Each structure stands twice: as C-alpha cells, then as structure tokens.
C-alpha cells in the first residue's frame, strides 16, 4: 500500500526567483519525513510539486516504481494516489463527515460495500462515529482535523502529505492532536511527507527531518542526529534554543572576542572564524566541567523545571537553563561539558549574518 518517494534534481522558479534548487531526496515506504524550514524556504512548494498541484521546471519524481513527473511525462494530481491534509483542512462545507470521507472512494468507483467497510473503519479509528452526519462547521477544530486525516486514510494512499496540519489548533490541543494523529498514521504504516516550521513538532513526529534553506536541503537526518550534530550554523540556529557564539579557532583553541574559552578544544576544526554551539540544558555551575565562562545576567524567565536565563558574554548573548534565579545584572560563572561543545566553521563570517542567539 505505502510506497517510497524519490525526488531527483527538482528545480522550480516562481516569479523569477529560484524556489527549489536542484533538490534530491528519497523517503522510504512507511517512513515519516518532515520538511522543516522558515517561510519562503520552499517546503510548501516542494509539497505541492509532489502532490501534482504544481509542476516543477526540471527534475524527476517517482512514487514506488512509477514515474509521476519527468520532462516527458506527468501523472495528474488526481491519479497519483496521494492524499493530503491541508493547513486549513479543506473540508467541503456542504458535505457531512461521511460524505467528505466517501467522496474520493466514490470517485474511484469503489464498490458500495467496500466504501461502507472502509468508512466504518476510518470513523472508528478516528473516533468520529458519533459525528458521521455532522457538517464540518458543527465540529471543533480537533474534530475537523481528525476528519481531514480520516479523509486521507480512507483512501489508503501510497503517500500522505501533511501541510502544517497542527498550525490551526490552539497550543493546548496541539500536542494531544499530534500524538493522536501520528498514532493513526503509524498504525496504517503510511509513507508521510510532513511540512512544518515548528522544530519541536518535526522532532516529535519524524523518522528523519529535512531542514530546508533557500530551496535546498541543508541537512537530512534523524531528529537525534540533527540535534546532536547540526551540519552547519544555519541548521543549529533553527533547532530549539541553541545559542551560537561567534569566535575564532586556531592552535586547537576556540576564542571569543573577549579571549580564549578555557577547556574547549577545537582540534578537528580548520583555523579561522568559528561558531560555538551551546545547548541551554548543558550549562552547569563553575567547577563541574573544566570549561569556564563568565557573564552578566540580562533576564530570567521561569519555565517550570528551571529558569531560562539570557546571559551576556561580552557583546554576545547566550541562553542557559539554570536551577535557581540569580539577580538580574549579577555576574554568573558557568561551565559546559567539553564533549557537548560543538564548534562549526563560520562560512558566513564575511556577511555578518545575525544568528539568533
């Protein structure tokens, strides 16, 4: 049922701007891959191209063993065997829940008994049975989302596309829905391409994440690998709460403009501009690790498990998680585990790209 997806050298320009630049990647059957990126990074364009709602300029697309787009042939969206959960769900307002679900099956001339069986099962697994005769505007946001997912699942698609399916839900509902949705999707063993700009969401749902930047994939890897070893400063800046400190590497040491950071070795990094990636949860009091850094507390915010501090290290700021709230303006010394301190080459040094702290 579920099939793999292969995209090779997909290129697309819109309004004279290159939106997707010679992009290649593959999703295995039954795998969930997220496209993570800021708005304008090309993730939605890629999704629409895979769906067949938009044609690429160049490249090839294949689902299973069937080429769905190449320079010489194209299978239209309605025959690709793909289904999609839209950001606004796109439930047809003039059809009841059951009608929304059966529309595609009727279109594909599935027999009446088969439609009934699939409909009943989809309503059962999504717990929508009591709402089968309701209209979309009579459902809550979460129920609408379940209908949108059920409408996808009922077709048993080769590939499911999810376009920011949680962005219309409020924060309290979002996590519950995410868990529930992925449980459904995993149970069916669907191959999924999932678009989001929320890294927490991407980490939670995906087998692998493709971090997109300006129409190219900056890194495609498992969530854990991306968290532990971001490929470059861009990916690091996109992943939750990391602080990026500009400095220099040389003689095996990393130096901030204010001086060398004790205890951090930069042996495997070429000399020149470098960036130190600090994960907030790694900070410990002075003396726990060999490294030692000192800065001034700019702000603090209670986060339940800990306090999130913003600490000024010279002209740069760093985010740290701390067990108690130090006074604002006070000096704070802290240490970092050297093996967790990642140093990346700073290719953007010349351009002075302002990294998010």
């Amino acid at each position, binding site marked *: 049922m579920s099939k793999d997806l292969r995209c090779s050298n997909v290129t697309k320009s819109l309004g004279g701007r290159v939106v997707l630049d010679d992009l290649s990647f593959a999703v295995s059957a039954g795998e969930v891959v997220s496209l993570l990126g800021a708005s304008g990074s090309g993730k939605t364009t890629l999704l629409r191209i895979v769906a067949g709602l938009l044609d690429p300029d160049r490249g090839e697309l294949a689902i299973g063993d069937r080429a769905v787009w190449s320079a010489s042939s*194209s299978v*239209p969206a*309605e025959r690709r065997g793909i289904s999609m959960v839209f950001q606004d769900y*796109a439930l*047809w*307002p003039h059809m009841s829940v059951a009608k929304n679900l059966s529309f595609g099956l009727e279109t594909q001339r599935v027999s009446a008994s088969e439609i009934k069986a699939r409909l009943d099962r989809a309503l059962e697994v999504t717990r929508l049975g009591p709402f089968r005769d309701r*209209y979309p505007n*009579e459902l809550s946001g979460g129920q609408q989302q379940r209908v949108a997912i059920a409408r996808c699942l009922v077709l048993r698609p080769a590939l499911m596309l999810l376009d920011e399916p949680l962005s219309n839900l409020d924060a309290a509902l979002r996590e519950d829905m995410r868990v529930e949705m992925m449980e459904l999707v995993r149970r069916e063993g669907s191959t999924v391409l999932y678009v989001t700009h929320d890294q927490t969401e991407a980490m939670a749902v995906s087998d692998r994440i493709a971090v997109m930047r300006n129409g190219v994939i900056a890194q495609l890897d498992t969530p854990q690998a991306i968290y532990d070893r971001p490929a470059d400063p861009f990916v690091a800046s996109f992943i939750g709460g990391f602080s990026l400190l500009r400095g220099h590497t040389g003689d095996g040491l990393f130096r901030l403009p204010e001086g060398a950071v004790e205890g951090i070795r930069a042996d495997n990094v070429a000399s020149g501009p470098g960036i130190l990636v600090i994960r907030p949860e790694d900070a410990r009091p002075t003396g726990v690790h060999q490294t030692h850094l000192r800065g001034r507390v700019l702000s603090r915010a209670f986060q339940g498990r800990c306090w999130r501090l913003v600490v000024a290290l010279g002209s740069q700021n760093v985010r740290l998680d701390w067990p108690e709230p130090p006074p604002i303006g006070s000096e704070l010394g802290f240490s970092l585990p050297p093996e967790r301190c990642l140093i990346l080459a700073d290719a953007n040094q010349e351009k002075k790209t302002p990294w998010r702290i």
Partner: protein
Amino acid sequence: MSATNEHYWGAAASARGSGLRAATARLWHVGIRGSFPLAIYLAFGLLLGLPLLLVLIQAVMPGLFDVNAPSLALSIAPLERALSSSRIADAVVHSLELATLSAVGATLLGGVFALCTQRCSLPARRLFAAVPWLVFLTPSYLKALAWVLLMAPGGYLAQFGLLPADIARAFFALPGLVFIQALNLFPLASFVIASALAGLGSEYEEAARLAGASRWRIWLKINGPLLLPAIALTLIAIFAEGLSDFGMASTIARVANFRVLTYGIYAAASDYPVDFPMAGAQALILLALVVAVVLLDRLVLRRRTDPRLISGRSRRPELYNLGLWRWPVASLLLLISVLALVLPLVAIVARACTRTLGVGLSLANLTTANLYVALSVGTDANAALLRSLAYAVIAAIIAGAAALLLALELDRSRGAMRPIVLGLSLGAVAIPGVVLGFGYILMWHRLPGFDAMPFPRYGDASLLITGYVAAALPYCLVIILGAIGQLAPTLNDAARLQGAGPTRRLLRITLPLVLLSVITALLLTFIRTVFELPLSQMLVPLSGPPVPPLVTNLFGHDQDGIGAALSLVSMIAAGSGAGVIWLVAQRLARRQLGTRDGAPA
C-alpha cells in the same frame, strides 16, 4: 486554454500510453477545452464589445450606416453640431446637474440609512434594513410615474391639500427631479456603505476607546477616514448611474421638459425622423463622461486601503444604544422609507384601483376594471405581461449560465485574457442601457452580415432577449466571480487529490458552494429584466411591446389607470415568483452548507 490544462491533458494521454486512441482522445480534449473558452470570450465580445465599438465608430464616421450613401469618411461634424447646439448643451448641463446633486443626496440618505440600520439599536431595525432592497428592485420609471401621480396639479397630494400649488409647479424642475432621483438611488449608497461598515469591524473602534477617545472623536478620526474611500466610491457610482438613467429621463424629466443626454440619444435614434449621427455624437459625449467617472473610480479604488485586508477577521461591533434618541432616528428612517417606497407604491395601487385621477380616492371612483384588463388573457396589457415574464426567465437563465461558465473560466485561467475580460465586464456595468440599445440598432439593423441574420433578428424578440442578456451579463459575472473568489482554492485541490476530474469538481464542489450566488444572480436578472426600460423601448419587437414601454406609453396617453394596474400586477407576479424561489433556494443552501444557525460556513 491555460498551460496547466494543456500540460494536464497531454500528460494524462501520455500516462495512458501512446496509442492512436490516446492521441485522438488528447486532440478531442484539447479541441473542446480550447474552443470552449474562446466561444465564451467571442460571445462576450459580440454581445457587448461590438455594439459599443459601432457606436464609437459611427460617432466619428457619421456616414457609415447611411442607408442611401454609406461612406467611410471621417468627420467630426455631428460632434461639432451637437456641441454647438444649445439643446444638447442644455442636456449635458442638465445631466451633470442632476447626476451630481442626486449623487450627493443619495449618498447622504444611504449613509444615514446604513449607519442607523448597521450600528444603532432601533425599533424595527431589520425591517428598515430590507427597505433599500425593495427600493432597488422597484423600477425607476415606475417611481417617477408615481411621483407624477402624486405631485401633478390635481394629483393625490394636491387632492389631500398637502401640497401648495407653487411647490407642485417647482417640483417639475431640477429640485423635484433631484429629490426623486436621490430617493431612487440611495439603496446603492446604503449597500456600499453598509458593507464597508461591516468590513470595518469593531477592533479599530475598541482600540480607540481604550486609548481614551470619545465616540465623536472615534467617528471623526478613526471610522470616518476609514470609510472615506467607500463614500467616494458611492458618490462616483451613483453619479455614473444617474448619468445613465433612462427611467426618469423618459418619464418625469420629459414631462417637465428637462432634457437629459440619455433621452436625447433615444429620441435621435428612435423617434421619426431618425438622426443616427446626432444619436452617435450624444452617445459619445455620454460615454466619455461615464468612462471618465469609471476611471476616477479606479483611481479611488487603487488608493483605497480596504480595512478587511488589514484586519483579516473582524468582529461584529456592538450596536449603539441611542436611548430616547432612537425614536426620532427611527422616524427619520420611516420618513425616508415612506418617501422612497411606500408613497410611490400607494400611488400606483390607488391609481390602479380607481377610474380617474381627478376624482380622487372616493368610493364611487373605485374600480377593478384596470386590474381586470391587466389580468384578462387577450388584452394588450396581459400579452405584454406574459411576454415580459417569459423574456425575463429566458434572459436570466442564459445570462446566469453564461456568467457562471465565464466566471469559472476566468477563475481558472491565469492568461492575458483574465484582466482584460475582468476589466471590460466591470466597466460594462456602467454602460448606459440606452447606448447599448443604440449599438444594437446599428449592429443588427445596419451592419452587413448581421442585418440579414435569422437569429437573433432585428425586430424580433430574440434580439431584445439578446440585449437583455448582454445588459445582465456583467452584473451576473460580478456576483458569481465574487462567490467563486471566496472559495478557498484548497477545497478544489483536496477534491483533485481524491481523484476527482475537472467536471466532477465543478459539479460536486464548486457549483453546490456557489449555487446560492448563482440563483441570486438569476433572480436579480429576472427582476431587472421584467422592468428594463431603455432596451425594451429601443428594440420593441414587432410582435408587441413588453411591460415597461407599454406602461410609459399608457401613462403618456392618458391610460394611466391601466398602466398602473399593469405595473402592479407585474410587480406582484415577478416579486412573488422571485421571492418564493429565493426562500426555497436559501433554505436548501443553508441545509446543504450545514449552517443550521444561518451563519455562512
């Protein structure tokens, strides 16, 4: 055909394999889907573009349609003659005076009406909110004729001693005409300003209140400036509508000997001896004025910052509680309603049920004879009624279907035709019916090739119905395009991914969702067509006139009793028919959309 479609069909064919059958199927689809939009554009051009072009060409080639010696010579002699004629100079000045003053008056009335019914808590607020619609649907020539019945020496108001003789005399001049025209056109202002008020929402106002602004200051500094573009738009639209109006021009203005451009065109093109060059010159002047106004409108629109676009979602504001002031305010609205709607209708009903105007509303004068004539099969009046209803049904169905197809095509296409057709159709709303009628006469009576055409044919009902369709097409298109534009594109994308082809998407997704708008467009076309005067008057079929020209003719020949009865019967017939269909359609659509509380989905 759009590139995407072409690609799609080509792709579908290649995906199925490259046999002869696939190639034939592809050709067939490309042929059908390619020629279909072309046919729609062509029909649009033939119905509206060519007649207008002929009017313009004829204005500078006055000999073009001369029966005896046709010539292609360019000449501005008729235009010079027109501009130097004091009669036509008067008509231009009269048209401008009337249009300007009634635009100001109607905007004021409409603004007050919209503000009170939208934002104030008033007794019978919903009833008042329906008044502009009823006024809008009552034909202008009928209201004008009703005011003649009311204000004429010996008319109803004089009989009741409500009208001093000198006021009655002054009424049949500019002030009276402005009064009637402002009351006639205020619904347009009320619609535009009410929709702007609804779009404004309450957020800006609440923000200003929290910043400490008083209610007056809010209106002066926040709501007022935000509504200004809508008010400017209203002034311009009503000015253009006033310039193009033929209903008043051919009735009360003619009685008052107040010549305006529209009637001048009609008289030159239709009254014996016909003077096409003169009609052309006046049509050119009128079109130039209307085009100038439409361009001004575009300028205002471009500068306009639509509040709906800024705020995205606006909440319905709270209604102002006026306290004791609600009674005087409600009385004001009641007065406007009585003058714009009730009084004219009462006059028509009274005249329809009495023998003579002069004897007044005495019991002895009451009669059912007029209504009997209008309702008896075989009379001219009844024949006109049946004719008008039939023509209107046919025109509404054709115009609605054509507008729907054109709207779908426009919505789908991203090509160069889209802005052109869109601009033309929006502009075409402003084409005066009398100019279109003149264009039709030139095209179907004089243009070689068309004059001999069996269908539609000059002097035949088919041509009149074609004209009705052309006049209604832009309105229908604007209504249906608006509805389609509100559909989220993802609704169609979702159906596509579920395997639905173009036809199935149209029938199962798009059409059900815009059905109510399509029916609204049909019903509006139906009602407007039953009471359409200028085209009906200029293209009267040989088989007999429809209702509007017959009514004005009856009033002009002292048979105003039968004229009033015919008007009354046709209003009841058309209004109740359309009303029933509207109620059924609305109920159906509401159930279909699952909006049990009546809110749009």
